[in-house]
């Protein structure tokens, strides 16, 4: 329930066991409302206090609910017809006046047969005199008093210009007049329908696509209609020539409802879960999550209060709804460190030449919003792959640099320059300063080091590091054959490291001081996200249909935190959102979550977060919140969040299990030692091998050792190289060595995913033998 004045949610009522399908105010007591649900009950509520007064059990699924002023003690519901699939009937249910909370309502009488299940397809006319229902191309009107049923049908032929399918219906409040919406965008206004033959209708046509809903004003003088065009049309006197529009409502209109006094009108829109292309970006100023909103808009979404703060029109073009029309849409967003500058990239996908625009926005303190500063048409010849600002908190504006990388094999550096044009209103504008390229490879990612002195740009398989003052190529790193998917610099104490993830499943850490590979790990990283406030880096991997999260510090190849089976979907994006105040976290495991919170966005557009609170703790306040969000489809992510929170609680349980299991694994001291000691202090691999193998042999009985981190083993680089070179030899000799045979048996019982690991063990074996 919402207050009209404050736009806030007032109350949430819960109690139905299944989807709530209909809400109607009690026509005899305006402080009460009826609700129906798929669980087969009708509940009467006192909505001011949020108390359920009565529950009527009907029995079958209730798909829609209507209450009438004229029928004292009965309501109308749509129920599925018993025995037949996909046919529904409208029945009136007598609500007995007996005392008691839970009542049976079995007195059911059929009013209309073969109706459609959607509540939009049935409407009650003037003072409950008649009921009209539409299905496909048929309209049926039933007069209660005369007990007369009139059926009208339109031609079912779909032509190029017409499709007569009914999509919605509304009845005039005072006159005998029915308005119906059609799939081809026409609105027909029916009159004289108590004559089977002399009925007549007029047509209003503005919508070019399906009319989603219709509503009459309280006096019936005007008619409201809405559809996918996201324009609310107000027809005066049902005249084709007098109409008003309320355009740019953001997204297609699903439902329209008029207030009793006719002053207010409420529209319900379809979920605007836009395809998030921009990535999750955090606005440093508001700490809001920034992502695609309405087409061509950026939405600033406050996570704490679960509200959309505001929406910024980036494309600044009229959104035209038309099938097959390519719209310009936002693809990249970047904020400068202080949130003073915002860079956006929009593109329109055309087969021949994509239309690209880079826009730079300046935060205007006065108006408290972003103002367009510079617009650059076609900044790159091809799609822009990445973009970043030089993040230097302490420096002044003049050192602000923006780097964009494009598919056209170059990266460009944009700097602010004083505007020489005296007529220009602004003093600065942006222009290109440097264009860099590397062997004509496509530039894929870019990243500035923390102090801003170095820029790393990845070109397919190679990471190049550039001096940000002179724009000299300093050094290159590569890890063939994989192409670089993500790169990032370490922060704070780890700022000498550069982390890169490649698409053949390796995570590499290069030391910038020695220009050498520090460590690498076999991990199919999809998302690499550094925490801006700590040295932690979160990596999300995707393996065998589940996503896993690893949090590590660049200076040690051992993850601080592992979360397997994070979710079933691929995780596309992640972001650290700084907390308002550092949370006190007891567990050492979650220490990295102290200063900021990690959010993920999956394939299915679900936004998730990791929480440290225990299940019980979370559930108590959340259950309330959960319900709010379920009845709250207007704000963009509320549904997603609601779903997610539920899932989260389940995840928390899973987490517990995993935790226990991990504990058991690490009972083996050898493995523990192997995994917990930093790679560079470990003794040589040949020394470690017998211990490791022994531990594995034990694990055969124990079983738990099998669970040893299958993809988390972080070996020192040397070992890796060794094994690469000596692989062939291993294979040649493996038949002679008896321990190997033994191992072979073991291998048989191991899962296929661990074969790789085993091969490595074999190599170690070999070196150990050679040492003898």
């Amino acid at each position, binding site marked *: 329930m919402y207050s009209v004045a404050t736009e806030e949610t007032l109350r949430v009522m819960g109690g139905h066991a299944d989807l709530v399908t209909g809400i109607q105010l009690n026509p005899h007591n305006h402080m009460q409302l009826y609700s129906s649900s798929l669980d087969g009950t009708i509940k009467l509520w006192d909505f001011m206090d949020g108390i359920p007064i009565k529950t009527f059990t009907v029995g079958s699924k209730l798909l829609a609910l209507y209450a009438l002023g004229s029928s004292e003690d009965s309501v109308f519901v749509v129920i599925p017809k018993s025995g037949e699939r996909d046919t529904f009937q409208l029945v009136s249910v007598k609500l007995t006046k007996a005392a008691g909370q839970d009542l049976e309502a079995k007195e059911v009488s059929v009013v209309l047969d073969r109706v459609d299940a959607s509540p939009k397809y049935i409407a009650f006319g003037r003072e409950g005199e008649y009921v009209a229902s539409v299905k496909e191309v048929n309209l049926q009107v039933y007069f209660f008093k005369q007990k007369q049923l009139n059926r009208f049908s339109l031609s079912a032929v779909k032509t190029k210009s017409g499709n007569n399918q009914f999509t919605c219906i509304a009845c005039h409040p005072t006159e005998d007049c029915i308005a119906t919406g059609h799939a081809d965008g026409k609105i027909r206004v029916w009159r004289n329908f108590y004559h089977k033959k002399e009925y*007549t209708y007029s047509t209003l046509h503005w919508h070019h696509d399906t009319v989603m809903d219709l509503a009459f004003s309280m006096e019936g003088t005007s008619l409201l209609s809405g559809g996918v065009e996201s324009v609310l049309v107000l027809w005066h006197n049902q005249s084709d020539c007098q109409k008003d529009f309320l355009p740019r409502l953001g997204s297609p209109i699903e439902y329209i409802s008029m207030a009793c006094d006719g002053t207010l009108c409420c529209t319900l829109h379809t979920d605007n879960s836009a395809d998030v292309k921009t990535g999750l970006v955090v606005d440093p100023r508001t700490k809001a999550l920034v992502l695609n909103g309405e087409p061509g808009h950026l939405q600033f979404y406050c996570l704490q209060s679960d509200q959309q703060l505001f929406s910024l029109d980036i494309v600044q073009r009229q959104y035209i709804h038309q099938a097959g029309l390519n719209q310009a849409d936002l693809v990249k967003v970047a904020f400068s460190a202080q949130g003073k500058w915002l860079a956006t990239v929009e593109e329109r996908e055309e087969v021949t030449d994509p239309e690209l625009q880079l826009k730079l926005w300046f935060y205007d303190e006065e108006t408290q919003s972003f103002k367009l500063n510079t617009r650059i048409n076609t900044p790159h010849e091809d799609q822009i792959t990445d973009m970043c600002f030089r993040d230097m908190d302490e420096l002044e504006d003049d050192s602000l640099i923006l780097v964009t990388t494009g598919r056209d094999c170059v990266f460009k550096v944009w700097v602010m320059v004083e505007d020489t044009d005296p007529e220009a209103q602004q003093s600065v504008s942006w222009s290109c300063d440097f264009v860099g390229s590397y062997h004509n490879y496509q530039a894929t990612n870019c990243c500035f080091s923390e102090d801003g002195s170095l820029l790393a740009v990845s070109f397919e398989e190679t990471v190049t590091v550039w001096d940000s003052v002179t724009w000299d190529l300093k050094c290159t790193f590569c890890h063939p054959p994989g192409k670089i998917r993500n790169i990032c610099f370490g922060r704070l104490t780890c700022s000498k490291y550069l982390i890169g993830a490649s698409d053949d499943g390796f995570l590499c850490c290069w030391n910038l001081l020695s220009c050498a590979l520090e460590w690498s790990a076999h991990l199919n990283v999809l998302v690499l996200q550094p925490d801006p406030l700590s040295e932690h880096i979160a990596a999300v991997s995707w393996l065998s249909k589940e996503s896993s999260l690893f949090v590590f510090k660049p200076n040690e190849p051992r993850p601080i935190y592992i979360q397997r089976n994070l979710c079933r979907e691929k995780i596309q994006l992640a972001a650290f959102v700084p907390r308002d105040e550092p949370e006190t976290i007891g567990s050492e495991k979650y220490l990295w979550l102290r200063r900021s919170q990690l959010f993920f966005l999956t394939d299915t557009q679900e936004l998730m977060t990791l929480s440290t609170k225990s299940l019980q703790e979370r559930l108590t306040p959340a259950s309330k919140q959960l319900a709010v969000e379920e009845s709250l489809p207007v704000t963009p992510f509320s549904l997603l969040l609601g779903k997610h929170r539920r899932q989260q609680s389940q995840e928390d349980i899973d987490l517990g299990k995993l935790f226990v299991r991990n504990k058991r694994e690490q009972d083996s001291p050898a493995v523990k030692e192997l995994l917990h000691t930093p790679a560079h202090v470990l003794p040589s691999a040949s020394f470690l091998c017998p211990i490791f193998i022994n531990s594995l042999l034990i694990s055969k009985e124990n079983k738990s050792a099998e669970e040893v981190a299958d993809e988390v083993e972080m070996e020192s680089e040397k070992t890796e190289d060794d094994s690469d070179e000596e692989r062939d030899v291993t294979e040649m000799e493996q038949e002679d060595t008896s321990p190997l045979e033994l191992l072979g048996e073991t291998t048989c019982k191991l899962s296929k995913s661990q074969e790789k690991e085993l091969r490595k063990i074999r190599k170690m074996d070999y070196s150990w033998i050679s040492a003898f």
Partner: protein
Amino acid sequence: MGEFEVHRVRFFGLVPAGVRCLACQPRGARLALARTDGAVEVYNFAANYFQEKIIPGNEARSVEALCWAAGDRLFGAGLGGEIAEYDLSRLCVAHSVDGGGGPIWSMAANSSGTQLAIGCEDGSVKLFQVVPGGIQFERNMDRRTGRILCLSWHPSDTHIAAGSIDALRVFNVSSGQTVQRIMVNYHVHKVKRECIVWSIAFLSSGTVVTSDSFGRVQFWDWERGTLQESHTVSTSAVLSLSVSEKEDSIIVGTSTGATYQFQLLPVKTGSLEKRWVRTKPFQYHTHDVRAVAHSSTALISGGLDAQLVIRPLMEKMQKKGYDAALRKFTFPHRRLVSCARKARLLLFQFSQHLELWRLGSTDETGKDGEVLPLCRMPEHLVQLKSKGPEHIYCSCVSPCGSWVAYSTASRFHLYRVQYKGDSVSVKKVPKVPKLLLPAYQLQFSADSGRLFIASARGSVHVLQLLEPGGCKHLHMFRPPSGCPDAVYLLAVSADGHWLAAVGGDWAIHIYNLKCFKHHCTVPTYNCAVTALAIHPITNNLVIAYSDQQLFEFSIPEKQYTAWSRMVQNSGLHKAWLERDSPITHITFNPKNPSHILLHDIYMFCVLDKSLPLPDNSALLMNQSTLKQLPETARQRQLHAFKICKKFQPLLFADLLDDNCLVMVERPIMDFKTQLPLPIQQKKFGT
């Protein structure tokens, strides 16, 4: 259906004139229509909207308003300032009276048909008394400046409402005083623009309905002078308006070509409160809808695109049938083309001239559907211009091509055409005998030796044509019982023995040409004859009626043939009977005596009498499906009607010799391009 070499003629540059006004006969079954060239046509509702009478126009006389008075007397008034009464049996202007107020813009008759009111350029409204044999000026109404564009009588005949520019006025008929004056201004941002009241209707409840140049249809209470309802139906002008006799429905026509229906509907079931509601929009016209009429069962509209559209009201129809068809008439229901079979010439009749063309020829043959290259292009031989303001009534070319005859309201012309190599000489035949003019139909005999002239009062004149260029009046036929109406269709047998003539009373008289005697009368049928022809071999008369019935009458035996009786017993196919345009021409194939070739505007049909008639379950237009069937299955599916719809709109079709057809088409788009541009309208998605 047989294979023919077809001359597809598209060089007949006919541009039909736009519809200027319409008048429904009160309580009657006729519709009078006036075109912008001054022609007046009468359609008969009972005869399935057949175009019964045509009074060709006159350059000197435009028609701005038509009305029926005193039963079935038709009056027309125009910008010439004269009120003319039409003689519907002789199909000409009976007499005319000067209105005395300059150009006349509007005319209306009172409900009893005893008085006519005209609205003139000088702003005067004049009353005329309808007396037997003419009209008499009665009185002037209170005169103000501003032309009176429309008039309407109150059903009680006590008041007249007149629409002018920016205002409408109501006159008291007995005193002649203006009793109410209502300004119908239109203000946009304090700028006053001229508002023209194009059409007006006075309802018995005292409501005056106006339609104006701002696209509004407004309902006024004339006594209080207040606006009751206003409906904006269009962004452009609403030009015409018509009220049904029950006063529960109104049709309006706009300059965008759209027509709208307004209905007086009760607001609630059973309540007395009623309101005018705009209901059905129709868009059949491309240009201004200058005239609308509301018959009891149909909405009728006529536009400057020369279309007359008759849209039946489905709720008034008892069953779906011939009456329920939507009709669009663009071309007249009579022959404008005549063909000289032997000489391969075509004569085209325009409103004021004739064109004689020689058909092209080819020496190649090809397969079905192939377009053959011409070795000789069609050639425009002669253009004959009619002198004077009168339009041509009828014309004909003889089968040998050497005689051309045409008639106007007051004159009859006969020409001798001679061909010497490539040059053509036309010589007027002097001293044509004095005839009862005008002639309504001309027909040469098959040997080109005689000319038959259909004339007034059921008479048919026979002229003997003499070489090298003369003629002699041979005989005049007259029906024995007498007939007041003119003959409008003629048919001559190929052997020159028989002549069939149809008069305005739809009786078919057959005359013997050998002994100049009335032979017999075909049993009367209560529908208009749209075409008739005599079979060259059997001398059977084939008659097509406007209700799409076909009869075959054996002239020697003076009775219907067995085939005709069989057709009547089994009945024609439903789809055939529901066609909306009449058969306009019938011809025969001498090589195949069982074939009858007939056509209307939309189809050409070869009727094979030897094949069984289709029953209602069979497909009537089955030529395309037959083509795909194997031979044995085809034999089973064959039926008598072999219909070809390739040529549309088909103005004329004739068989030149055994396997050569000529088809005269006038594609709608060809003449639409010659009309003025329609109002520009934004179409979504363009």
